[in-house]
């Protein structure tokens, strides 16, 4: 398989505030990984400077950089968490 597919990345906390939206739309190459996704996010004009300490969740699990993102996966950027 080749080509690109759309990824809807959910935003929370400060990210949602600075972007003014709860989601950003990206296009990932088939076979793309969490690291590739981070690369695309780093190039985002607003989010790019605010990714320090962030985790990536895929299908509601925190995933490592080498994990592959597939069509239809639920993807979110998780800023440093502060519960309690």
């Amino acid at each position, binding site marked *: 398989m080749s080509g690109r597919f759309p990824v809807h990345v959910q935003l929370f906390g400060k990210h949602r505030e600075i972007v003014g939206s709860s989601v950003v739309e990206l296009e990932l190459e088939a076979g793309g990984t969490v690291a590739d996704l981070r690369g695309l996010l780093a190039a985002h004009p607003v989010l790019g400077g605010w990714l320090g300490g962030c985790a990536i969740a895929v299908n509601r699990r925190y995933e490592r950089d080498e994990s592959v993102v597939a069509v239809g996966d639920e993807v*979110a950027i998780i800023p440093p968490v502060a519960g*309690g």
Partner: protein
Amino acid sequence: MSSVGERHGEATPVGVVVAEVTESELDGAELLRRLGDSSDGAVIVFEGRVRDHNGGRVVVRLHYDAYAGMAADVLQEISREALARTGASAIGVQHRIGSLEPPSVSLVVAVSAAHRRPAYEASAYVIEELKRRLPLWKREEYADGTSEWLGGHTPEAGARGDAMVMRGTE
């Protein structure tokens, strides 16, 4: 009644009774009732409350935002780990979201166990772990009209406790 020689974890396991993120007001006593009746010798209710100060600034309101679907899963998983690690018999945990004024209750953890040690340990485990990996954020609003998202912990990939759950009793 448990005998002196009984080991921790021999109480009838009830499990995770409640693990949720909610916009509703929280009540520790009510959550404890939901754990049900048992012959456990120890119950603990922890209530975390919104402070009216932080770092020398007066806090008038705290706004909580959560990745609700994932947060419920993470609370469930942390609670299962706590039971597996400590032998406590039942846990309920609720985290409130939305705008809260001091001294509103933002977090309740109720634990029932045969003895005090697993009860204390399970309660502390749930709180410490949720601070590390619950996808939830807070923005403090100050008396001078400014506000700030608070920094926190970076959850680790794979930190949803798979290994510990596998070692558990499920």
